[in-house]
């Protein structure tokens, strides 16, 4: 079930009132668990079985881990949890990719391993809930978390529908205690949730989807488009993926607030970053912090010398790329970011980067805008590999940029791209200045916030009723 489908609003119209009506924590948790499995099973009920397996295994392993003091046995239990989760992920997401890669290598030596191909579909959001549930057992293993006694609470932690299929990838230590004390949200929390949802729907439905319609055409058959049109298509993809994913995250957080739960922030205006390190502190925060805590640190982080730090960084980004999808394009995307981060680390040395831009005069503003533009150009280049379905398509784009061929429609493409960019930038600047994602309900005149929100939702519904909804980009991961 997509957030941007009318049926989802009907679903909410049933889920929310019943949730508010139920008096006890346990009843609320059971109701949300049922709703979450229905939400997930709406795509394909068979997907629910994978969710259930992951849940049961990690709940049992978590309990045993806590009760066991023998280090060897604890390690075995952790390995069991990791093996089951990564095994499911490996079979459903990566098996055909690795086999395909082996086939390519084998074919170049005259071999044939065609028989190994599996006809399986990728369950929606599998990478998200797999990482989320793994963090539970790893944290217990590291002694940072106590396991929960309630299977219902744990099952809800894994399947909580607002963030089940595209995050934020929550940590058990943040989400489980909130589930254990589920109650009705305060009025302020509901308003904040509404503000987040309106912001999210605006981003997803009125920026991400319309940009995505163009992007889909351009990337499907780039030969039909000329250089400025291809460049506009790439720029629009950078707008689409951000509006789409941040929109989803805002909606997820807003929904959660309406259920009395605070989820972590997943985006903090990444395109306003002055360097690539800052970008990764602001982009898909729940994944980058997960990778840092559970992969980079496990590999040794920066504790084993400079060379090893760069190797760890690159490995983390390569695997982070592969997390997005079973394709070498994502590996290249991750590799480029790893390279950027490494180079920036070299330049930075022992220095620290600022969290935010601080105005100290016109020169500082010019410097900030320059470094921000450079960061965005570097990131834009990586998006080409992220969106292109194969290297041939990416190469065609690059070739077209080198052998520039104009178009009589250049000014139209330019004005379309600029309009989208200005709109997403405007939202980001407001968020950046106010430090609130729910800024619409931070306006002192609450009725003004309601008026603006109402108008935005009217336009959102009009768009939804006249256009085919595009799935969230990150659902496929």
């Amino acid at each position, binding site marked *: 079930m997509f957030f941007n489908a009318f049926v989802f609003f009907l679903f909410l119209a049933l889920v929310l009132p019943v949730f508010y009506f139920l008096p006890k924590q346990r009843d609320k948790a059971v109701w949300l668990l049922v709703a979450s499995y229905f939400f997930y099973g709406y795509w394909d009920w068979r997907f629910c079985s994978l969710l259930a397996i992951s849940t049961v295994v990690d709940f049992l392993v978590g309990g045993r881990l806590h009760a066991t003091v023998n280090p060897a046995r604890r390690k075995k239990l952790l390995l069991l949890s990791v093996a089951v989760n990564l095994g499911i992920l490996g079979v459903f997401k990566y098996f055909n990719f690795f086999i395909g890669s082996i086939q390519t290598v084998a074919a170049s030596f005259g071999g044939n391993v065609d028989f190994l191909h599996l006809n399986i579909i990728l369950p929606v959001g599998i990478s998200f809930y797999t990482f989320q549930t793994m963090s539970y057992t790893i944290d217990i293993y590291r002694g940072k978390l106590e396991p929960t006694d309630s299977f219902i609470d744990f099952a809800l932690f894994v399947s909580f529908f607002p963030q089940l299929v595209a995050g934020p990838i929550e940590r058990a230590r943040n989400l489980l205690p909130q589930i254990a004390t589920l109650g009705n949200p305060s009025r302020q929390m509901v308003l904040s949730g509404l503000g987040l949802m309106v912001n999210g729907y605006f981003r997803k439905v009125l920026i991400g989807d319309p940009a995505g319609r163009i992007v889909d055409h351009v990337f*499907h058959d780039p030969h039909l488009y000329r250089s400025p049109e291809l460049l506009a298509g790439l720029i629009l993809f950078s707008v689409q993926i951000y509006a789409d994913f941040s929109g989803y995250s805002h909606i997820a957080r807003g929904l959660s607030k309406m259920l009395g739960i605070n989820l972590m922030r997943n985006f903090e205006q990444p395109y306003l970053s002055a360097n690539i390190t800052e970008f990764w502190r602001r982009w898909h925060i729940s994944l980058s912090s997960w990778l840092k805590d559970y992969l980079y640190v496990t590999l040794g982080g920066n504790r084993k010398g400079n060379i090893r730090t760069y190797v760890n960084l690159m490995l983390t980004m390569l695997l982070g790329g592969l997390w997005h999808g079973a394709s070498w394009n994502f590996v290249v995307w991750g590799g480029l970011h790893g390279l950027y981060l490494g180079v920036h680390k070299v330049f930075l040395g022992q220095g620290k980067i600022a969290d935010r831009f601080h105005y100290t005069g016109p020169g500082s503003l010019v410097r900030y805008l320059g470094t921000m533009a450079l960061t965005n150009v570097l990131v834009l280049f990586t998006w080409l590999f992220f969106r292109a379905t194969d290297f041939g398509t990416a190469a065609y784009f690059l070739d077209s940029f080198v052998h520039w061929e104009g178009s009589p429609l250049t000014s139209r493409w330019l004005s379309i791209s600029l309009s989208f960019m200005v709109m997403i930038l405007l939202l980001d600047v407001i968020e950046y200045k106010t430090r609130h994602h729910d800024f619409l309900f931070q306006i002192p005149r609450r009725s*003004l916030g*309601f008026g603006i929100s109402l*108008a*935005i939702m009217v336009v959102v519904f*009009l768009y939804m*009723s006249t256009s*085919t909804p595009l799935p969230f980009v990150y659902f496929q991961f």
Partner: protein
Amino acid sequence: MKRKISGVLILVLGFCGTLLAMDLYLQAAEIQTPMETRIDPETGPAYVNGKKVTRFNEGFYIGGINSQGYYGPARVREADHGEKRILMLGDSFVMGITLFERYHFGTLLESELNEDYESKIEILNFGRADFNFWNMYQYYLDFASKWDHDLVLFLVGRTDIIPARQIETDLYPFCYLDGDSLRINYEFRNSNKFKAYTAMAPLVNNSSLFRMSYNTRKMIARGELTALMLDKFAPLFDKESKAPRGEAGGAKGKRDLPPVTLAILDKLSRNPKAVLVIKKPISEELRAQIDQFSLPVVDISGVLTGLEDEGIDPYYWPVTGKRGHWNHLAHERIASALREELRRELARRDIH
């Protein structure tokens, strides 16, 4: 009380101001361009000159109405420099705003014919969505024929020559028979609907939100609301889908050409510039009725059936996964087929 009233006022102001801002954004980003069509009191259906058009249907189009009031490059009415002109009239397939102008069969045909002839050949596209053969004839008489031309092509299929319905007679002129005489009724100018339209025209042609609302209303009128709202649960509530499928009505059941169509064919057969192009296969019976007239007929329907025989669906758009109008390949093939046929027609008229 005063506080409540001011709260409501602020809410309304915020609502209206945001709608206005959203309309500007929708137009600037061309998420939804305002309506490019208008109704002219003299000629009926018309376009707003110079209007930008971006369309996302099964395909994707960025372009617009030229300064002369039709799709494609603008050409003034007089062919001053000895250009040879071919006008095309037809429905949305001819209008073709599912792909960029440069891939439209008219553009491809023009460049192909220009390789063959010394004179410059220009093709003017007067296609318009929802037009049938009767509308094309009226549009030709009242608008398209004002441009100098050497040939005029009427691209039709079965449903064009046997229209299932008249377009709104309260808003558009329409062909009818007065005894044996073919006439055009312009009474729409006096209708209340037209007056209401005229009053609303500034909003209609300048607001993206109006167009979105209009499209939503049309979608509801088509009975698509249940499917949109209920998604997978829609079949449980959709009575129509449970109803047994009966014999298709309208054009499909008819075997004879209507008298108005016959009268138009008769008129066109006296116009040496007119050519009837059959774009979709029609029955032999209908073809025999058309052939009674001395109107040149070009049949390119085989191009599309040929593609289908090759296992290629000329109506399929892979990006959206929808079927609809001709896709890129179909436009290419139609241009090639028309090139051959038009060379013959031009030769018959001593155009080299």
